[in-house]
């Protein structure tokens, strides 16, 4: 059975419908790239997944649980971890407190997160507001890891960061993948980076999933038509 299954998902912001028919599924330990141009419904799909936007129709199943009617904190407790777009750390908490606030027991703890991001360990007494953009991104990833999720979702994790920092983040994501067990959904625009790490890909076009398959099988013409690369 798949860990996550979205079937015919639709959703609207008020009167304007954003998702029409999104289908995808994800197995345990798999990395899925969710791609598409701006405004095609990637972030909306993520919002539905985490209960931040009510679904209009279709099914949203995680490990046999129906997510459609659950409150956001209950979804998180089922084992979904979100690294939100635009980082969004708790700025009035220190680095260490940001990590502790959400901690649940499991392989990811203060020590393993510090090993993944040594910079966070160096700055653990600083307020999150005083960190650089890249460090805040690391902290957002660390915070999600500390909840020991079974599915980690990274929404535009490298957007707006300097190339060197982006590399650092991608390296960390690869390391998380190499640990096994954890499934990951990556929302990003960089096909080059995604193709190195993702096992499968889903492409969204105007609120519909238009391509679904192994990352290596993504034909060049599909990529250029829907992603513009």
């Amino acid at each position, binding site marked *: 059975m798949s860990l996550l299954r979205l079937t015919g998902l639709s959703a609207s912001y008020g009167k304007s419908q954003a998702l029409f028919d999104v289908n995808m599924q994800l197995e345990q330990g798999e990395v899925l790239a969710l791609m598409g141009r701006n405004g095609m419904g990637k972030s909306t799909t993520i919002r539905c997944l985490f209960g931040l936007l009510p679904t209009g129709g279709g099914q949203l199943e995680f490990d046999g649980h129906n997510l459609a009617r659950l409150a956001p904190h209950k979804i*998180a407790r089922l084992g979904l971890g979100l690294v*939100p777009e635009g980082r969004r750390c*708790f700025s009035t908490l220190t680095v260490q407190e940001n990590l502790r606030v959400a901690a649940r027991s499991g392989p990811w703890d203060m020590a393993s997160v510090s090993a993944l991001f040594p910079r966070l360990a160096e700055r653990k007494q600083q307020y999150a507001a005083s960190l650089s953009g890249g460090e805040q991104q690391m902290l957002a990833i660390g*915070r999600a890891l500390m909840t020991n999720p079974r599915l980690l979702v990274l929404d535009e994790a490298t957007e707006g960061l300097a190339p060197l920092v982006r590399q650092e983040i991608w390296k960390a994501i690869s390391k998380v993948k190499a640990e096994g067990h954890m499934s990951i959904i990556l929302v990003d625009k960089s096909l080059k980076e995604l193709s190195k790490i993702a096992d499968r890909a889903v492409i969204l076009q105007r609120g519909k999933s238009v391509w679904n398959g192994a990352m290596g099988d993504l034909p060049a013409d599909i990529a250029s038509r829907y992603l513009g690369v």
Partner: protein
Amino acid sequence: MKRETMINAALLLAMIAVPLWAYYAGKPFTITLATKVAILALAGVGLNIALGIGGLVSFGHAAFFGLGGYTMGILASHAQSYSPLFNWPFLFEGSQNMLMIWGVTILVSALAGLIIGLLALRTSGVYFIMLSLAFGQMLYYFAISWPAYGGEDGLSIYVRNGFPGLNTLDPIQFFAICFALLLLALFFTHRLMNSPFGLALNAARQSPLRAATVGVGVFRLRLVALIISAIITGLAGALYADLNRFISPTMLSWQTSGEIMVFVILGGVGRLMGPLAGAALFIILEQVLGPISEYWHIYLGAMLLLVVLFARGGIIGSLAKRDAAHE
């Protein structure tokens, strides 16, 4: 040592030194003033948990303060007249034992916090402020119109309640009781701020949705915080009634809610010792400016304006400079 820690220590030392000096100098009124500071600070410590850490702008904390006062007044007045509160389903008699009164106060405040929280926490922002105010006013008018315990005139208790092994009529001993409770509440708040519960409460103040996506159940969290806050403010109310040996609906009025909020904001919202600094300043101003003009509140208002406009960290925040990015 961080600067804020030093300021906190200095404040606590002053709270011990001033009454001790007054004791040896034979100035019981100064001890009473210090007691009042300790009690009002305790009420502020309660509000600070909801307002400072949780961001819940409760404009109805007088409800808990007054409930604590009335709990004391009702229990003590029944004890004075030797008439039980009720006979059924079990015999419940009044009491003039502080420990007993505090126990009942904790139960009553917690229950009030639960009920008010269950209803008011469904809203946020200005609606929460208005709902908390509405509950406070409901209790206020209820107390005015309920003649059994004095109604509008209030109720006097002739003898201060007792504490096992102490003479509570001795100002310094009563001060010690109040100060000990304040210390206990401050220690508890300090622990709470650094616990996962406190961190989650702080996180939820910034963004309830973001906190929810890391698994924080925001409604329950805030409800528990409001109940804890209500208990501490309720205890302060019971002590305040004991200090004056008098209760009246004024304790439940929105002016009282406002005053408790002023202590917290003057001292520093979300700062551990903020309420103590605020309450101390309030009493000092009242004593210094009160004799000059009966409209001394205008100076307090000006001060509040300055703090809100230019020193959002309050007294503690301005003295400690930048230790915390709390504002």
